[in-house]
């Protein structure tokens, strides 16, 4: 199929429609506005429902209702809006309903700004809402991946009956690149639990309430066990030049692209630098980090946050190798030279041992 030039946000929307998304509920917020606009225009062409909700709170609860009724459904927002969706995400995870939530992250805290950031990592990966639950979190690094991951998100959501988040940023959302789309919708999935009207079967309940500690603990353990299985099955990452590296950078999303350029610049100077780019951050891809640690390779984590993913990297290497950190915030993005300078500093300093 021919490639189409598209914005990242549009690629997510088109990818979702092609995957068979049949309902979208959202509320305007920059920098994700292209997603609902695209959905409003194109979802009805595919017998889908688009509805602009009165708030992010309403939108996520519409998603809960539609997901419970068995539809392939999604919502998208940006950071402050995701905060408002937190209670609903917890309900959806607790009820084990499949859906897709897109966060095109902007800088915060508070109203913050509309420029790119990665300050929602903790919110996405460690909770955000209340109670013990997990989202599966995908972190695209290109417009093509935004299209691919929209499809993958629905696949994973239905495979695990769990909400899946695609966490991007304003640069990825706005930039244009040629993309190619997979053909045909995902195969339909049997949803015997859906509340579609109890015709010829016992009635279905979608519920997260259980006032009996004995049985609710069982539910908690069952969820924990599911998240463990997700962790084992669904880790994704891309490793670049890590085999012979003396220093490995870790970065996701837009930062990984900048880091890749910095890596090339370092290699041009004969410096053996590698890159690990997590494509899922829950589950966090531990193996490449464990492998780096076992080979005594120090790490440099680069983030658009005060230091969030770096905590997971530190957990993965468990003190075996130094984990350095470089960041920009407030909507600022480091250039390749900036990362290269840090690489040079670290590699000079440590004389190859760091």
């Amino acid at each position, binding site marked *: 199929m021919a490639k189409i030039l598209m914005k990242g946000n549009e690629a997510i929307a088109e990818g979702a429609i092609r995957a068979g998304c*049949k*309902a979208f*509920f959202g509320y305007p917020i920059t920098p994700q506005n292209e997603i609902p606009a695209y959905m409003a225009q194109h979802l009805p062409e595919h017998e889908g*429902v688009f*509805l602009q*909700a*009165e*708030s992010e*709170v*309403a*939108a996520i*609860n*519409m*998603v*809960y*209702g*539609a*997901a*419970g*009724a*068995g*539809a392939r*459904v999604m919502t998208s927002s940006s950071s402050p809006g995701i905060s408002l969706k937190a*209670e*609903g995400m917890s*309900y959806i995870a607790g009820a084990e309903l499949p859906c897709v939530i897109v966060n095109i992250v902007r800088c915060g805290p508070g109203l913050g700004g509309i420029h790119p950031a990665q300050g929602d990592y903790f919110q996405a990966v460690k909770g955000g809402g209340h109670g013990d639950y997990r989202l599966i979190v995908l972190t695209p690094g290109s417009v093509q991946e935004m299209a691919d991951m929209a499809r993958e998100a629905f696949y994973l959501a239905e495979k695990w009956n769990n909400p899946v988040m695609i966490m991007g940023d304003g640069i990825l959302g706005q930039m244009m690149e040629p993309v190619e789309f997979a053909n045909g919708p995902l195969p339909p999935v049997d949803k015997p639990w859906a*509340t*579609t*009207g*109890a*015709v*010829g079967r016992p*009635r*279905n*309940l*979608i*519920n*997260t*309430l259980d006032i009996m500690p004995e049985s609710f603990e069982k539910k908690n353990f069952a969820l924990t066990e599911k998240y463990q299985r997700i962790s084992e099955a669904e880790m994704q990452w891309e490793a670049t030049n890590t085999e012979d590296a003396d220093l490995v950078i870790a970065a996701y999303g837009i930062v990984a692209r900048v880091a890749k350029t910095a890596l090339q610049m370092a290699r041009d100077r004969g410096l053996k630098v590698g890159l690990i780019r997590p494509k899922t951050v829950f589950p966090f891809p531990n193996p490449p980090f464990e492998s780096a640690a076992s080979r005594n390779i120090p790490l440099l984590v680069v983030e658009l946050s005060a230091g969030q993913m770096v905590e997971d990297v530190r957990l993965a290497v468990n003190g075996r190798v130094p984990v350095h950190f470089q960041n920009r915030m407030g909507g600022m993005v480091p250039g390749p030279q900036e990362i290269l300078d840090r690489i040079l500093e670290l590699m000079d300093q440590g004389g190859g041992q760091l």
Partner: protein
Amino acid sequence: MKTVFQRPRALTDKPFHYCPGCTHGIIHRLVAEAIDDHDIIENTVGVASVGCSVFAYEYLNCDMQQSAHGRAPAVATGIKRVLPDRMVFTYQGDGDLASIGIGEIIHAAARSENITVIFVNNAIYGMTSGQMAPTSLLGQKTATSPLGRCVETNGYPIRMSEMLATLPGASYIARVSTHDAKHVLQAKKAIFKAFDVQKKQQGFAMVEVLSTCPVNWGMEPNEALTWVKDNMVPYYPLGELRTPAKEGELNA
């Protein structure tokens, strides 16, 4: 022998957990009877809210979703939009609908979402043990208005039905009461009609049902019924506030 009284099909055989004299049970029964009378039990998806009626899904014997506090109209919207030929209703208390969920109910009405809303107004937060609700009457003593609700600090109780009736999207709005048998029969008719409106795809329908909370009002069941009649009904007048436009016409 002819059966003259039996449990509606749409009610499970689970005994209600409601306090003695609480009219939630009566209202559940009326909803179940409306579902039976319309013969829609297999085609209905209910949405339980957060409040004493959170367990409505234990009693109403159709497919049900339990929603977050105040969000039942949004959840119902999600269901109805993807399954437009199913009957969808919510069952909500006054804290749920008139306080935390006031945005969701207004917008569901404004969109003329083709759903049926059962709004149980007992002028108090029952489940959380008797705090002031947006519908608590002036002078009413609650856990969080121990000296009685006063205008200076708490403002005025909200008349949700009147407010929603100003919206062209609200096709059917009625207020009924449960304080005696005659009014229970009227309530039954209104609830039947609210499902009928949905069946005919005439848009948003809500029945506000005045209800008791003897425990948190600090009253005996009978006293509570009298309190509804003497104090609630005068502030919350009964009747149909809106009925659907004639076929082919838009709501005014």
